[in-house]
């Protein structure tokens, strides 16, 4: 069924409209990760067995410290004291969401596959921090926002989940689908002096 269906992330035509030969050494390269699925998980971190049952399904830790990411087979972002985002290949998201739901039966928890609702963009290159600073009020200095940190904030006028994946640096920006066209255009405009380029995963 759904495995054979073709999923659209919605930025295909913007990508198709890109100039032919992007610069070889861009200050920022943006990769559209339409191949990632997203699962929203809610539950009480304290008591009740919620954390244990979720961690068993995920095969990795649920980050309890605010604004951190647990990296493993999936990427799990802390969103709130009782809310997490699991990013995982879209082909397995529905099945993983099903297993998480099943594991949390009888526990105060909520699991929603929201793969259609958000898009991850990977920003990589030496000018990443400069570009993000144009639209984000977070302090992204390496000594303040380190690998493994994440935060929800605003980028330009869109809400995003932002995470530092590695110190190349690579930033992951997760944006709601309806804002992704706006954010793409903003990145293209604000990054034009840095030679920002875009590509599909």
């Amino acid at each position, binding site marked *: *069924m*759904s495995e054979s*269906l*073709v*999923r*659209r*992330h*919605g930025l295909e*035509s913007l990508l198709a409209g890109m100039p032919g030969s992007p610069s070889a050494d861009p200050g920022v390269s943006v990769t559209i990760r339409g191949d990632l699925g997203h699962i*929203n998980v*809610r*539950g009480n971190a304290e008591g009740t067995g919620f954390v244990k049952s979720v961690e068993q399904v995920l095969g990795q830790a649920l980050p309890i410290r605010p604004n951190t990411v647990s990296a493993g087979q999936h990427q799990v972002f802390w969103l709130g004291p*009782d809310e997490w985002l699991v990013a995982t290949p*879209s082909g397995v998201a529905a099945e993983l969401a099903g297993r998480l739901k099943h594991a949390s039966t009888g526990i*105060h*928890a*909520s699991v*929603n*596959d*929201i*793969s*259609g*609702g*958000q898009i991850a963009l990977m920003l990589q290159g030496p000018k990443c921090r*400069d570009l993000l*600073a*144009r*639209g*984000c*009020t*977070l*302090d992204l*200095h390496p000594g*303040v926002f380190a690998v493994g940190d994440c935060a929800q904030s605003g980028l*330009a*006028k*869109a809400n995003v989940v932002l995470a530092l994946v590695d110190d190349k640096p690579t930033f992951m920006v997760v944006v*709601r*689908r*309806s*804002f992704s*066209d*706006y*954010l793409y*255009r*903003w990145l293209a*405009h*604000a990054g*034009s*002096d840095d030679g920002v380029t875009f590509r599909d995963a």
Partner: protein
Amino acid sequence: MQPQRLPAGGRIDRSKPISFRFDGRKLEGYAGDTLASALLANGVSIVGRSFKLRRPRGIVGSGAEEPNAIMQIGKGAHAQPNLRATQVELYNGLVARTTKGWPGARFDIGAINDLFGKVFSAGFYYKTFMRPKSWWRLYERIIRASAGFGRAPTEKDPDRYEHRNAHCDVLVAGGGPAGLAAALVAGQAGARVILADAQNEFGGSLLGTKHSIGDARADEWIARTVEQLAALDNVTLLPRSTVFGYYDHNFLAIAERCTDHLPEEERTGVRQRLWRVRAKQVVLAQGAFERPLAFCNNDRPGVMLASAVSRYIRRYAVRPGKRAVVFTNNDSAYETAIDLAEAGAAVVIVDSRMGGAGSVAERAANAGISMLTGHIVTDVVGRRRVRGVRVAGWSGNPSYLVESSIRIECDLLAMSGGWSPAVHLHSQAGGSNEWDTDRLCFVPGAATQANVSAGACNGMWSLRDCLREGMESGRAAASRCGFDAADVDLPTTRQGHDNPPQPLWRVPADAEPERCPKQFLDFQNDTSVADIRLAVREGYRNVEHVKRYTALGFGTDQGKLGNIIGMAVLAECLGKSIPEVGTTTFRPAFTPVSFGVGAGENVGDLYDPVRKTAIHEWHVAAGAPMENVGQWHRPWYFPRDGEDLHAAVARECLAARQSLGIMDASTLGKIDARGRDVVEFLERVYTHNVGKMKVGRCAYGIMLGEDGMVLDDGVMARLGEEHFYLTTTTGGAANVLAWLESWLQTEWPELEVFLTSLTDHFSTIAVVGPNSRKVLEKVGCSIDLGKDGFPFMTVKEAELGGYPVQLFRVSFSGELAFEINIDSGYALAMWETVMAAGEEYGITPYGTESMHVLRAEKGFVIVGQDTDGSVTPVDLGMNWLLSKDKDYLGKRSLARPDCVRSDRKQLVGLLSSDNSTVLPEGTQLVEVPDAPVPVPMCGHVTSSYMSACLGHPIALALVAGGRVRKGETVYAAMPGREPLPVTIAAPVFYDPKGERQHV
């Protein structure tokens, strides 16, 4: 040919001549010049006309304090008004125009105003242009045409502007000696430092001077310090950057001019950048402003601030005059006299103090300068240029009158009335200021934020003190951020002995201020001593009122030059002390900031986010104009060849009623709600009995605010015993979720409920019309779609055309209809699938306009259109939704006396008596059209459309007591035509029994 340029010296590059135009004249300067220094070098003495009296004016200052030389710079779309020539760097091809005076500054027809100067006193505009009232439009046109400091370009701004957020441990505002010292100490300690200075090079007042610091000359020390700072990774140097605003919690705004100093053809990239800085600590080192003195005709071209004269000589190698008088009440101007003498000018010092200056007097004498102590300048001779001054002996008696004066010939008068620290940022931050009776200035008092003032902006005048305070404040700021700074030895600097300044503001003349030539306080606004005295005579006492009556310190000047002296004159008139009178409020921006840099990237397409549905591109390709609904762009209608809105909507509505329509409803807010207590929670926020809903059922629900007014509405569905799916209005989605969370988190944390937004995850496609069931069956559905298998107001999980979907049997049109919720990644494919399958039924996509018509025909309200925050469910006739068995938010308010009034506005239908007029939405309704003005109004139209399927216009309205008035006539008041009689009707126009949706 630059007649006033000195043959050597200065920080200009004589190997790089630069040509520019000033009011059409071709002139030449050098790299390193400002526009002001180049104009002075060329002997240009008149650079503008004064605001009100049109007196010729010359350059007075050398920086942000300049009141007169305000220019329009650049051509066409790149032009910038309101720039001070003293702050504009010269570049090849620069075009500058004076902005006051017509036809030009040199000959200005408005100068005739000066002949009637007595008429143009304080409050002139208030007194003169009030009568007759009907003439104000004419007055305004004339005043606006003759006033103003520039013209905004009419073309679209072609330049790019940028915003940038930054964080630092220590922000240093001002890069003079104190600022450089502070930045270096803090930077070397390891703190993240931003150093911003308005000028093109760091060094501030030190640039070009003869000072020595330790073993280095001033310029060498500056270069070395800047080099050390540049080598530190943790230090950001921002030249050409003005810290113009100090806001709450150490948030500061800096305007950086990135390319304005380059010839237009060489500019690339961002033109100006707005830095939004959050600093842990702030060191304010913005220096001080020299004050003028208020003697007669003190605004004549050739009267300048002494510090500006020194700066033109030392930094720009321009000597503004050959025969100079220096008029001062303090020691600092003696240095100017020495600079002038060294530049070859003949100089006389006129010092108001009987005792003259301290140790600098000896150096002045050695330079061959003659000194008149106990003397004052009472008047200036010369109209278009200083030709001489009148000087009289003065004993310090604060009378308005002096007797007998002598004339001294000169072409330059350098004045110094003392110094005022630039307390602007300190004050913007909320700090107080204290009057210092020894230094005769306001100095920063206690700071309310994490900031400290250092150097001249803290009232420190000597270089040694500035360096010391800079180092100390840099070290303290770094230390408060956790960085230990090493002790730094204070370099040796020459330290002289100063005699204290003398209080001298208004300078006595040979007549009372009202009878002698004008003694200006604020050059930019033409405010004189006599104006302040007049304001006081007319009863003004408060400094803020006097400011507004006399325009003292108004406009772009913000009183940098004239405020303190103006307040001193006011204090004298009121018989008060200066601190008793106080200062006016210091507000951002310190200097004017362009609209472009304020807007940054938020222009054009990016002004506000445009939210798009997953099917957006299809709508665009189909030629649909878009309508803004909140931030969303939704298709408005889908015109076929040559159709206008009305034709397209009529066709779309008929298609939906007669066969098959399709609409993108994805913008609906969608919330997943689940948990053990979800029913209890929803019972408390919805007005109907949620618990009675069976699994698989849908219901229409409304939420009220605690005030009983309708907050939002939508269809909800019970997906499981402890699992609901809620929809909200498009505009209310985010607010409703936050509202629900606020109750869960703050009031009822004991309820186990989780809410998750699914607004973006699901796209919603409404398939509408008598053939909607057939088309879904044709697409291929895994469930029985029949009337009994899938009845009205139910929901089912299904597979449709191979896609997993949630299928709702709900209708916002009154027709048989289905809403498909599908993962947005597949929404476009689903839309196209249904479109293809519907071809045989003439499937017709429709937009927001037809959606509105279809629902209005059924009397379905839209929250936010038919309601406005003052409408209860009872007003809407929704009593059937209000449970009597439980409490819910807002219920108690429905029993408030105001909510049970019988004359509340209630929802009704309206029919135009002529059967053809579509009433404009918002039309006011009146009972008696010819009642005397003001005509009492009884309601207004909230929704209004032409109904194609009914063949006549329909409207929804809120009418006082309307529900019991069916059949009565009220009148619709429409501008430009006779009031139209309209008949009150039930708000449901079509299929009132609701049979069509139940098939």
